[in-house]
């Protein structure tokens, strides 16, 4: 991964290519978003509803609910979650200089999973007032707190005298993940049948629970993280040369690490909290784009946000029509789509990737 190509002409070409890709991806996202609004188990057509609204005609309550309370929040949630996961993946891979890095490495996923499992299994033991106040937000809130808590612990472990060791963080993440897995195992043992089914479904992810209220709580964090990400681009490009080299060309390495980790924890924590465990987006999207337009983070991060959003919306459309009126967990769709594509890329580009 070289950020600055010695061949200026080729680099220029590449930048142009990356920009054209951005425009193309934006168009793809718009198309897929239109699909997301128009397709679904119910036959509601957004254009008819819109025409009726503009003409001041009465719109059936069921159609209004399908469009404005189900499809629209779902679409917005899918776009934000997809973009967050893909950008987080790209940032992690840049930060760890490892193509296999994903947001799970900073402990977000393990902690969020433990939080969610605790809320599902131990929900009955919470003080009644707290349980009533949280309602069905108990699981997302617990997942978010769990994700943040484990990231902060990991960051604390890996930081000594104001310097964060990426290697320590990686190893600490493995240890913390094992610990969270063990605690989750205890809770799984305590869980009853219905809770076990809930746990399984949570782990497979879904956008079906998207409501405006959940979106209002999670969107600011994801949006903030997405806005912060492009500011990391130059630093991540420099980091590709190695930490010492990056420091010597004037990149504030420690601040970069801190901001990158907080960005990833914020985006992924919020995304996992509202949608459960959705795999593959964080790994497949950045890889696809690196192969298509190169490793320059200035374009990679923006394109990852667009492609991640488009892919997740597409996966959600598939999830909800494939066995309609029932619905597949979206994690199954992303894995079924993402796994083979990823393998195919690996096989075709074995030499180039040189893993």
């Amino acid at each position: 991964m070289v950020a600055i190509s010695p061949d200026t002409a080729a680099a220029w070409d590449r930048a142009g290519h990356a920009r054209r890709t951005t425009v193309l991806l934006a168009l793809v996202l718009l198309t897929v978003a239109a699909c997301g609004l128009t397709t679904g188990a119910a036959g509601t057509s957004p254009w008819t509803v819109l025409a009726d609204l503009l003409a001041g005609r009465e719109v059936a309550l069921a159609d209004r609910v399908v469009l404005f309370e189900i499809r629209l929040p779902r679409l917005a949630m899918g776009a934000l979650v997809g973009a967050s996961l893909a950008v987080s993946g790209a940032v992690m891979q840049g930060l760890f200089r490892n193509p296999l890095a994903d947001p799970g490495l900073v402990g977000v996923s393990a902690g969020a999973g433990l939080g969610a499992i605790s809320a599902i299994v131990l929900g009955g033991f919470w003080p009644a007032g707290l349980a009533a106040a949280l309602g069905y937000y108990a699981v997302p809130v617990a997942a978010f707190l769990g994700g943040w808590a484990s990231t902060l612990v990991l960051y604390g472990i890996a930081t000594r005298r104001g310097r964060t060791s990426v290697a320590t963080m990686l190893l600490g993440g493995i240890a913390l993940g094992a610990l969270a897995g063990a605690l989750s195992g205890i809770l799984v043992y305590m869980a009853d049948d219905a809770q076990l089914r809930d746990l399984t479904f949570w782990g497979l992810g879904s956008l079906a629970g998207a409501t405006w209220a959940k979106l209002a709580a999670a969107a600011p964090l994801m949006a903030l993280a997405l806005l912060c990400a492009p500011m990391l681009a130059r630093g991540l490009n420099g980091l590709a040369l190695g930490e010492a080299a990056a420091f010597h060309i004037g990149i504030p390495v420690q601040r970069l690490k801190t901001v990158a980790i907080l960005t990833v924890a914020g985006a992924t924590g919020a995304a996992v909290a509202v949608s459960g465990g959705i795999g593959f987006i964080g790994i497949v999207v950045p890889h696809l784009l690196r192969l298509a337009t190169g490793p320059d983070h200035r374009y990679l991060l923006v394109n990852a946000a667009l492609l991640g959003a488009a892919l997740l919306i597409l996966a959600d459309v598939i999830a909800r029509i494939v066995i309609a009126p029932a619905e597949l967990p979206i994690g199954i769709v992303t894995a079924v789509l993402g796994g083979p594509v990823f393998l195919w890329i690996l096989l075709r580009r074995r030499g180039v990737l040189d893993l």
Partner: protein
Amino acid sequence: MIRALLATLVLAGPALAADRIVSVGGAVTEIVVALGEGERLVARDTTSTFPPAVRELPDIGYARRLSPEGVLSVDPDMILAEDGAGPPETVDLLRAAAIPFVEVPDGHDRNAVLAKIAAVAAALGVPDKGAALAADVGAALDAATGQAARGPHPRVMFVMSVQGGRILAAGRNTAADGIIRLAGGENAVAEFEGYKPLTDEAVTRAAPEVILMMAREGAEDMSDQVLSHPAIRTTPAAVARALVQMDGLYLLGFGPRTAQAVRDLSDALARAGS
């Protein structure tokens, strides 16, 4: 506040003309059909598999993971759901779409069956048919449990599955525990609640005289594999080859067929014990 108000309205308002009903839960669907109102169903959940005719209806998925748009797509005017159907987000959206969502209480004894029937009949607006069905089912249950009480009282262990050699057994407060009691048996596993994996030693100590399992449609017969399991092999049940398999929904559904299931099970327990 508004939500609570809406819920009250929904619960208080009798569903008079509901004739596009989505039924969620195997026993709930059976009760609707037993009340002679099966024509009014337009969709069902995955667990609603009896009578076979309901399998023709669209399947809206697993009861605890209903998709709001999927449910709305069958254009229902009432959802009739067993206790625990959800998730709550979906229930809220359905209420927002002004579709009554009626929860039917669950339970694992005689009165719970009658309460389910009454709740379904009330929601369908046919309380008289409900009272008649409840009287029939109640009488049949009393007869079946009375007969079972005079029969043998063996120690029964309900084995949910034997995944990877680990035995998942039913403890207290489960449907399996309920049906074993009604059929005159004694649950051999009383140390815990719910379905949990048992260690081999605990299986030996529980010393069941009969093993009870669900018969899975299309799956291979597990009886030899279960009876030759190292822990079960030492129990009186294995020595006598006393293994009973019954259809899951029939055995554990606690619906209109439960009296017959109690009779079948107690007969099987008597045969197995002799």
